[in-house]
């Protein structure tokens, strides 16, 4: 069974690629220090996962993590970020409720996904070089939540209109 990639899926992957390149290249070029860089990819994954549920969130997180691992300089080992973002996407998807599609629930999903990513960083530090910068993790999380507060309504709105157009 070969799954067909819908236009919406392509748009989501494209959005993830743009977010990954923005975080790796554009934002540091504008002088944003690394510790204040928001994780735009997690925001894109969480916005879609909160609308569609854990399985979909895990799939999009997996694809997004692969994109982040491949955009230079990438992660090491290759694929670890994919597993981490799959878990983050699944966690954000747990905040899915068919009845409500509001901003608070989406923010909750984003917060959960960001927490999963940082906990993953702690695990990597345990098995790797043994150093974890707690202050940088806190500022990163705050920056991600702040940008999410601005970006999530936009992303949810675009998602809603695209879905409506596809079904119509």
């Amino acid at each position, binding site marked *: 069974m070969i*799954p067909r990639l819908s236009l919406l899926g392509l748009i989501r992957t494209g959005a993830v690629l743009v977010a990954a*390149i923005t*975080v790796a290249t554009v934002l540091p070029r504008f002088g944003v220090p690394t510790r204040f860089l928001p994780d735009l990819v997690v925001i894109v994954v969480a916005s879609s996962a909160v609308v569609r549920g854990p399985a979909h969130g895990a799939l999009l997180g997996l694809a997004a993590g692969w994109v982040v691992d491949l955009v230079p*300089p990438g992660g090491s080992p290759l694929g670890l970020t994919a597993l*981490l973002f799959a878990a983050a996407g699944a966690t954000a998807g747990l905040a899915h409720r068919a009845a409500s599609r509001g901003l608070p629930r989406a923010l909750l999903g984003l917060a959960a996904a960001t927490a999963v990513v940082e906990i993953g*960083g702690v695990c990597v530090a345990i098995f790797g070089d043994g150093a974890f910068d707690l202050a940088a993790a806190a500022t990163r999380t705050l920056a991600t939540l702040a940008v999410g507060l601005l970006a999530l309504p936009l992303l949810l709105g675009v998602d809603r209109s695209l879905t409506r157009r596809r079904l119509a």
Partner: protein
Amino acid sequence: MTSVGRQRLLVVLLLITVVAVVLDLSGSVLPDRARSIAAAAIGPVQRAVAAVDHGDRAALEEENAVLRARLAQAEARLAQDDAAGRLLASPSAGAGRLLAARVVGTNTTVTGGRQVTLDVGDRDGVEPNLTVVAADGLVGRVVTVGPWSSDVRLLDGAEAAVAVRVGDGVLGSVSASALGDAVRAPGDLTLRLVDRSTVAAGDRVTTLGSVGGRPFVPGIVVGTIVAVDPAHGQLTVTAVVRPAVDPSRLDVVAVVLPAAPATTDGGAAAKAPS
């Protein structure tokens, strides 16, 4: 896509990802192949995106001149020292050609291995294991080279270790991993001395230089000692080194190109990126 179909797809993709992680950990070449393909594809995009504001072209050239001057100073200082003079006399250690580069990719993931991506690659003459310097000091060494971009491993990566000289003569090595239960501020490096000598806070740490100048040319400033670890009966003296270059604020760097074998001119002629 049905729910069962989606779950099946998820399981298959998760398995493929786990296989990829295991392959990379066990040193297979397939993940590096995938990375180089991705770098060849995305490198030009990153270069184009990073080159959007070109108002600081003059600043770029000015920094290049500063780098050239400092490298020449460091080599002149070392040429007076007899032992290092022999190292510099080897034909490929007279590296003076700097290739100016800009950082176009910074590692932002929690799983990242402290690398940055530059906008110069194979086509500009970059090879693996070259020194990368900034105006303040050592940045790292080139690890992966693609056609349009290359990756630099920074000093605070887990596997990085640099042979250094403290002050005038004490030899040691600097790496990011701390010994035992020593606590380090983020970004600080650990110096391990070769023999039981005394160093003090404030001593400057420079690269010792490798054979042939690869991966490190001699005389580049690595950092300054900020504290010496108290002796708890360990065999080697260790100290805390604050790096001269802040890796989160890198912008313009230079790759130290090896001296071309046919050239007799040992001067510092910088090659502009193509």
